[in-house]
């Protein structure tokens, strides 16, 4: 009967329906389906994936752009820059750039945008990258600005890749949903169903092949995949591995995300390095890898290759249950309470198959005789464990986490994780803090070397975390598009780089 009823409705609706549905988009118009709805379109929140993927380098442009290969900053709205003293940088701005509302792009506009970010009148996610640095911006001439900071900023140009320049007419004291920037596309509409961008004729650069792009969102990966498969959409930046079944359309890419388990070294038995190493050794890494696809890279540190400071030599822990058991026995002999229950704290939907991974790892650890118990939390509860101040009530615990550093430098990783003050750090070691401080201040080769040393020490001596994998993202790209994802895809999808086959 139920089916009959469908037929009935179908019959009734087909007539009305067909036209609207079957009308194919015209050639230069594409539809992109994202996993979730952007909460807002505030240009100052472009480091939030679903905001960045829409706005970044489409509507608004940054001063510098990180080169995915080298991790070095290249020219964006700023064409060149030089460091006049440790705290001061001077930028040359691009000529002949107009905002979509006609306002001119110049030193004042940059000053405005940066002050809007740092003013504290509105919630600005991007500013987090700057830590607590206080910036003062002074226009030298129409196309030159000087940025002064209260602390040395060796990698300011890299940081500037998150500074999105908005039109001076943007309200400075409240977040907006109608951003106006200098990008090749301007916002046409933003409804609960879709965001539509249209090409901006006055764009300074070359005209993109795409004339119109609309974004929709579906939480179910299988449905996103289906939409591209059926031609309802042309591109979805992320689908689950089990949906990436078609080599023609589905591309894997190293997405700069590194998954790991944080060990809370503050509690017995986790305060014992042998146990921490055992935890690393007890996992059947190849088996686990199957959950994330054969292309995932086993991680030995929290940053991916291409990030300044990554140590290619550093070998990850291999699976060795026997050794793990031995270490545990040894620790036990030394009086470590190895039977204490250890809470493994996972987060729902942190990454595809994340929950399965936790279940698997729990099983493996139990297998080597550790009393690990899994608790899955939702984001907000999980955050309480991730960030200081940690909950008082916690006991010995392991925390599922994922770190995304696509900003080219280990500086966005090391301090938060490993300094006593770092908001994720569970241990404090004054000496180690010192090493990190040096690395942060250093530049060039020296800087790289120092960071490598730090990663090596964390891995070999401290073992305060369990790096899992450098994750692979899967995109499905419609047959009529000319596009490949790269490490930056999680934070931006520049429509200008998308070509059309024909």
């Amino acid at each position, binding site marked *: *009967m*139920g089916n009959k*009823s*469908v037929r*009935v*409705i*179908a019959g*009734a*609706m*087909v*007539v*009305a*329906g*067909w*036209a*609207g*549905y079957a009308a194919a988009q015209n050639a230069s118009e594409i539809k992109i389906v994202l996993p979730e*709805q952007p*909460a*807002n379109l*505030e240009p100052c929140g472009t*480091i*939030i994936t679903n905001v960045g993927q829409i706005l970044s380098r489409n509507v608004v442009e940054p001063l510098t752009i990180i080169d995915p290969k080298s991790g070095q900053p290249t020219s964006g709205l700023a064409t060149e820059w030089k460091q006049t003293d440790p705290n001061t940088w001077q930028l040359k701005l691009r000529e002949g750039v107009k905002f979509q509302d006609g306002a001119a792009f110049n030193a004042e506009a940059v000053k405005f945008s940066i002050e809007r970010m740092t003013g*504290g009148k509105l*919630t600005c*996610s991007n*500013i*987090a*990258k700057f*830590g*607590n640095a206080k910036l003062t911006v002074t226009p030298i001439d129409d196309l030159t600005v000087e940025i002064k900071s209260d602390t040395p900023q060796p990698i300011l140009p890299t940081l500037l890749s998150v500074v999105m320049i908005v039109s001076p007419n943007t309200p400075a004291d*409240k977040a907006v*949903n109608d951003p106006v920037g200098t990008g090749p596309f301007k916002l046409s509409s933003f*409804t*609960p*169903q879709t965001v539509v961008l249209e090409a901006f004729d006055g764009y300074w650069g070359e005209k993109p092949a795409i004339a119109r792009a609309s974004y*929709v*969102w*579906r*939480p*179910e990966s*299988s*449905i996103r995949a*289906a*939409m591209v*498969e*059926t031609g*309802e959409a042309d591109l979805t930046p992320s689908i689950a591995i089990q949906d990436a079944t078609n080599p023609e359309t589905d591309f894997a890419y190293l997405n700069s995300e590194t998954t790991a388990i944080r060990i809370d070294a503050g509690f017995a038995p986790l305060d014992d390095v042998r146990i921490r190493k055992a935890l690393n050794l007890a996992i059947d890494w190849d088996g686990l890898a199957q959950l994330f696809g054969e292309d995932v890279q086993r991680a030995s540190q929290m940053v991916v290759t291409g990030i300044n400071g990554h140590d290619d030599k550093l070998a990850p822990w291999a699976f060795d249950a026997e050794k793990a058991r031995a270490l545990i026995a040894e620790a036990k002999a030394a009086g470590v309470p190895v039977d204490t229950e250890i809470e493994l704290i996972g987060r729902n939907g942190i990454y595809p198959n994340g929950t399965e991974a936790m279940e698997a790892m729990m099983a493996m650890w139990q297998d080597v005789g550790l009393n690990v118990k899994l608790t899955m939390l*939702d*984001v*907000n*509860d999980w*955050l309480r464990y*991730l*960030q*200081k*101040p940690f909950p008082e009530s916690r006991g010995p615990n392991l925390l599922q986490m994922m770190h995304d550093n696509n900003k080219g430098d280990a500086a*966005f990783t090391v301090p*938060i994780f490993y300094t006593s003050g770092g*908001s994720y750090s569970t241990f404090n070691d004054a000496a180690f803090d010192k090493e990190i401080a040096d690395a942060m201040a250093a530049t060039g080769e020296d800087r790289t070397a120092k960071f490598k040393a730090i990663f090596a020490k964390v891995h070999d001596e401290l073992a305060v975390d369990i790096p899992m994998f450098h994750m692979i993202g899967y995109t499905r790209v419609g047959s009529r598009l000319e596009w490949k994802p790269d490490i930056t895809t999680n934070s931006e999808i520049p429509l200008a780089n998308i070509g059309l086959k024909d």
Partner: protein
Amino acid sequence: MMLGYIGRRAYHSVISVIGLLTLVFFLTRLTGDPSALYLPLDSSLEARQAFARLNGLDQPIYVQFFQYLHNLLSLDFGQSLRQNRSAIEVALEAFPATLKLAVVAMTLSIALAIVVGALAAARPGSLFDRIAGLVSLAGASTPDFWIAIVGILVFAVGLGVLPTSGTGSGLHWIMPIFVLMLRPFGLLVQVVRGTMISALASPFIKTAHAKGMKRRKIIFGHALRNSLLPVITVAGDLATGLINGAVVVETIFGWPGIGKLMIDSIIQRDFAVVQSTILVTAIAIFIVNIAIDLLYAVLDPRIRY
């Protein structure tokens, strides 16, 4: 009298709504300070405290509550943290989508259920009766999100006759409506059948036969009309429960409705929006209930308020 009755109902409902909002307010606040959710993971403690201060989340909860009540009086339902605009605006914007879904689904379910149920009741134990019963019950017994995804894989991907999801053309309606209908339809068929059978056994049906009326007229004229009341009651409850089905349907089919909004905003701890959505749905439900009572009076001359 009628007005008096409605007034009484309205008064009761206002009480419940206020109770509801209070409940929601404190319950949601118990789910924790959302500041961290709204800032990037590597943001500093200071940044989070600043955020809390900016949005008054650092106040003691009862202060927040009185603030909320005070704002209510001036019809200010608070700001959405997530979408940085008025919460009630967000809720009202999402409501029509769900309303459309619900109305269409309910109307179709009721209509179909009445026809099917009546025909089944006309010949209890017949093949049609058994099949209708089985199918309707099966419909009521399937996990809706499961059938939804299967439906997409079959009809959109496999056969390619329907769009996978989204809104727009009439075809986009078919699957969401169907999924949403399953449960109400299934249960209503049962109710209609049951009430029809007992109605057909009632004395005045004998009279109708004694008058020499045509069977069809007896079934649809006399029996059905008298068995509508319980059907409406159940339909009402189902309608108010439909918001749950809507959540799933909206999530899967990317329908920008209030059900999904509700869930998203509680997951995102966007308290003001949660409260606004609750307010909107509660009022809608209240209107449905009133409408049902009035419908009673229309259908049964013995009922007067």
